[in-house]
Each structure stands twice: as structure tokens, then as C-alpha cells.
């Protein structure tokens, strides 16, 4: 490897780590991605000088491939709505996993003399990358609404275990023999694709953030392993850093949902004893926006719980306007954010930041939960499962044990909701039937608008 390539890779590795470090504090986060971006450009340009590159056709294809892949991803990334960010992360992550697998594919198809260690790492990287690829695409499809249902069938885990077992055996055959056939290799990749799909289809939408984070970590590891195969230190370092950071991030997310990772992956969401949870008594009681406006205007303390519904309706700007006029009247207003509000941890914070809501009125689950009994009005906007008291009270409920925002303990609860349906997990919400709960049916933006108008009239 030429000197200039080596120096560039070194610089890229430094910039990646520095960039990630910067990204972990809100103040410098923006610079972080720019630093990492510079590292990426340096490494990419330097690779054009890599001595292993030969042939004008190969060179042309490289430029063409970068242009096509880069252009398409750049355009889609620019256009996508803020609410759709999580699935885009899944999609781009899947592409990375696919790329790592394809690299392994090129090396394994060639059947060149490789040491057993290298060959083994190539095979491990190939399987992990392929699983991350197909799994991420399924996660993307689920979040994008292309496939809404979770697919389960009897003995699913045994089937998955069998597929995985065969995958491991084939992988070992390829790693330890130099005479594997192309068919073996093809079946190996197909099984890895299949396993990625199989392990993701039974996982419910609520658990998707954890799964995407896990696939992110897996892609990182795959990249690290393929970096070893290609003797490329930039890939080794960046891949491994992302791998370990991703695993930690996955753990943090799973912890925030109070669901061990093994639970997310292997015990199907909704497999709880009855699957349905206790029957709900009582009825949902509707209310008019003007009445809610009066309630809020004369309250002392209002807590707003935003959820994915607010994000979809793009209501965060209107909601912030409402908060401002309430604050002008002397009402204390706080935002309560559940760790998995939206589709990913921190997703809701990003959306509120977009609307200009200052950090200091946004509270975490732990900080706000004891304040609900002294809260006059809780306004739930498009959130559902994260305020379902069944998680606390009903052991037969699929979400039992998940930490929730105790909105039901407030004096009054107003729920803005489009219709009477259940949440993303498909579970009936006991909060909506509570004596102190009133339902405000309608689009979140329209309702926030009515509330703003209502408060102004008083």
C-alpha cells in the first residue's frame, strides 16, 4: 500500500473517532458529522490511488458506482421527511451490510490462497453483513408501512435455529476447505439472506429501533472483518468502533424499554399469556377543543406527551405555539418524552428541536413521572403505548413491565387522536377509558390550531 494511501487512512480513522466524539454532545454535534465527512472524502479519494486497482474498466465502474449509489442516496436523504428518518437509517445501514457482504463475495468467488484465519473472517463478515442487509430491508419495509403485519408461525424459532445451524455449517465448510463449490457459496449467501428476513419478520414495530441499532452494530462488525480480509486499517478501525458503539447503543435502548435484547429477538412481542390483555371497561369520552382550551388556560401545570402521531401530523410547530401562549398566561408547561417516543430514542427530541422548543422544558421519563399527580392537565398528542397503564397493572398484557409515563395519575388527561384504533403494537389502551380522560378526536395539527385559537379567545 502506498504511503499516501496509508496516511490518508490513518487521517480518516482519526477523523471518524473525533467526529463520533463530537457528535456525542449536543453543542458540537453538528461539527462532528462534518469532521467524519471530511475523513470519508479523504479515504475515498486516496483509495483511487490504491495500488491494487488496475484496469480502465474497473476504474470506470468504480467512478460510475460511486456516482450512482452516492447520487441516489444523497437525493433520497435530502428529500425524506423528518418523521421517516428511522427507516432511512435502516435502509442505508442495509446498504452498508450488503456492501460488506459483496466484498466478501468477491474475495470468496476468487478462491485465492488465503490463510484459514482470513478466510474464516471473510465468511463471518459475509454472513453478518448479509443478515444485516436483508434484516435492515425488512425493518425499512415495516417502518415505511410497506409491510405492516408481523409474521409468525408455529415452531418459528426452531425453523430459524435450523436455518442458522445450516448456515454455520456451510460457513465452516467454506472457511476450512479450499475446494468449496460455487453452489455451496450461493446457498450460503441465500441462507444468510433468508435468516436475516426470518429473524426480523416476527419482531413487532415497537421493537424496531432496537433491531435497527443491532443491525447497525452488525454492519460495523462485518465492515471491520472485511477490513481485515483486505488488510485495510481504516475499515478495521471504523468498523470495529461502530460495532462496539452500536452494541452499547442497542443495550441502552433495550434498557430504556425495559426489554432485554434476547427478549426482543427471541420472545415474540404479543406472545404473552393471553396475548390480548384484560378486557377494558368503561367508554371513551369525547370533548370539544374549546373546552380543552379553557381547561389548559386556567391550569397551573400542563404536561404535554408527544408521540409518533404528532410527528406524522407535523404538529410540533403548532404545539410549540400553543405552549408559548400558555406560558404567557403563566401556565407551567413541560414536555415529557418517553425513551422510545416516536420510532427511535431521541427521535421526538429531534422533532421538538426542529420546532425550536428549548431543551430545558423537555423532561425524561424518570424526571417527570413523579410530577403527574400534581399536574392539572396532561395533553397526549399522538402517543399511545407509552402511556398505557396496562404496562403497570396488567400482567397478561404484551407490554407489561415496560416503563411508561404515568399520565393516568394526572388530574385531567386529554388525548388527541385521529380515530379509535389501537397503537402501533395493536394493544387496547386502558388510559383512554379512564374516568379522568377525555378524547379530542382529530388531526394533531388541526386540533393544536383550534386549541391555540381557543386559548387566545379567553
Amino acid at each position, binding site marked *: 500500500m502506498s504511503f499516501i494511501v496509508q496516511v490518508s487512512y490513518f487521517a*480518516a480513522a482519526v477523523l471518524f473517532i473525533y467526529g*463520533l466524539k463530537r*457528535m*456525542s454532545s*449536543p453543542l458540537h*454535534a*453538528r461539527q*462532528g*458529522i462534518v469532521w467524519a465527512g471530511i475523513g*470519508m472524502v479523504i479515504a*475515498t479519494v486516496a*483509495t*483511487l490511488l*490504491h495500488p491494487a486497482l488496475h*484496469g480502465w*474498466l*474497473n476504474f470506470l465502474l*468504480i467512478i460510475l458506482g*460511486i456516482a450512482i*449509489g*452516492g447520487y*441516489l*442516496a444523497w437525493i433520497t*436523504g435530502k428529500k425524506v421527511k423528518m418523521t421517516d428518518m428511522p427507516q*432511512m*437509517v435502516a435502509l*442505508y445501514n442495509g446498504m*452498508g451490510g*450488503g*456492501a460488506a457482504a*459483496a*466484498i466478501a*463475495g*468477491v474475495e470468496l468467488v476468487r478462491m485465492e490462497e488465503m490463510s484459514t484465519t482470513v478466510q474464516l473472517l471473510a465468511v463471518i463478515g459475509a454472513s453478518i453483513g448479509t443478515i444485516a442487509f436483508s434484516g435492515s430491508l425488512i425493518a425499512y419495509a415495516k417502518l415505511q408501512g410497506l409491510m405492516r403485519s408481523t409474521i409468525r408461525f408455529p415452531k418459528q424459532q426452531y425453523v430459524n435455529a435450523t436455518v442458522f445451524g445450516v448456515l454455520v455449517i456451510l460457513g465452516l465448510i467454506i472457511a476450512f476447505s479450499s475446494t468449496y463449490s460455487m453452489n455451496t457459496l450461493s446457498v450460503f449467501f441465500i441462507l444468510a439472506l433468508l435468516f436475516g428476513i426470518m429473524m426480523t419478520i416476527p419482531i413487532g414495530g415497537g421493537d424496531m429501533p432496537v433491531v*435497527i441499532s443491532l443491525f447497525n452494530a452488525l*454492519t*460495523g462488525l462485518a*465492515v471491520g472483518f*472485511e477490513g481485515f480480509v*483486505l488488510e485495510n486499517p481504516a475499515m*478495521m478501525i*471504523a*468498523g*470495529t*468502533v*461502530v*460495532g*462496539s*458503539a*452500536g452494541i*452499547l447503543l442497542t443495550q441502552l435502548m433495550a434498557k430504556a424499554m425495559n426489554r432485554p435484547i434476547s427478549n426482543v429477538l427471541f420472545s415474540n412481542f404479543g406472545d404473552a399469556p393471553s396475548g390480548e390483555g384484560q378486557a377494558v371497561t368503561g367508554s371513551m369520552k369525547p370533548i370539544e377543543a374549546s373546552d380543552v382550551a379553557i381547561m389548559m388556560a386556567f391550569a397551573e401545570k400542563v404536561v404535554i406527551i408527544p408521540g409518533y402521531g404528532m410527528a406524522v401530523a407535523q404538529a410540533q410547530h403548532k404545539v410549540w405555539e400553543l405552549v408559548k401562549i400558555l406560558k404567557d398566561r403563566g401556565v407551567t408547561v413541560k414536555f415529557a418524552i418517553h425513551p422510545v417516543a416516536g420510532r*427511535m*430514542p*431521541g*427521535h421526538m427530541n*429531534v422533532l421538538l*428541536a426542529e420546532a425550536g*422548543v*428549548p*431543551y430545558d422544558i423537555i423532561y425524561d421519563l424518570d424526571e417527570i413521572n413523579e410530577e403527574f399527580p400534581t399536574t392539572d392537565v396532561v395533553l397526549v398528542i399522538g402517543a399511545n403505548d407509552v402511556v398505557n397503564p396496562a404496562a403497570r397493572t396488567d400482567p397478561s398484557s404484551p407490554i407489561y413491565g415496560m416503563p411508561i409515563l404515568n399520565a393516568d395519575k394526572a388530574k385531567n388527561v386529554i388525548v388527541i387522536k385521529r380515530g379509535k384504533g389501537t397503537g402501533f403494537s395493536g394493544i387496547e389502551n386502558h388510559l383512554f377509558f379512564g374516568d379522568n380522560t377525555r378524547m379530542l378526536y382529530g388531526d394533531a395539527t388541526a386540533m393544536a390550531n383550534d386549541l391555540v385559537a381557543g386559548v387566545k379567545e379567553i
Partner: protein
Amino acid sequence: MDGIIALYIFMLAAFTGYEVISKVPVILHTPLMSGSNFVHGIVLVGAMVALGHAQTTTEMIIGFIAVVLGAGNAAGGYVVTERMLEMFSTSPNKGDK
């Protein structure tokens, strides 16, 4: 590359990743996942090398796919992360406290 050196690299990089993430506030989890998603876009350089020394047509096709996917990972990861983080840098000034 020397196997034991590679092992050292893996070990140090793993601890680095762990350390970098361990003190992150919850609000940055999504941007950071997106940021780390961008960083493994470095797979692009590997894809370029794989395609660059491809000899047969099969190798070239697979290598080309690798480059397209890798470039997508890097470019898409960058744009999405930047858009998320942009909000963090502007919000303290916009929001009136």
C-alpha cells in the same frame, strides 16, 4: 498483516467505540446511531478495492454492487445525520427561554 497486530487494533477500536458512546444523553441516541451508520460507510473504500482488483465478470458484477451499496451507505448516512444534527445546532438560538 500480522495477526496479533490486527487483534490489538480490534481490541483498542472496540474500547474506543464503547468509550465514545458511553456518556451520551438520550436525546442524541438517534443522531448518533445515524452518525455511526455513516462511519461504517467506509465500507466504500473496501468495495472500491474489491472492484478495482476484480478479474472475472462475476467478480466485477459483485464488486460493482458493493461500490453502489457502499456509496449509498456513505452518502445517505451523511445527509440524514447532518439534517438531524442541524436542528440541534440552531434550536438553542431559535427557542426563546
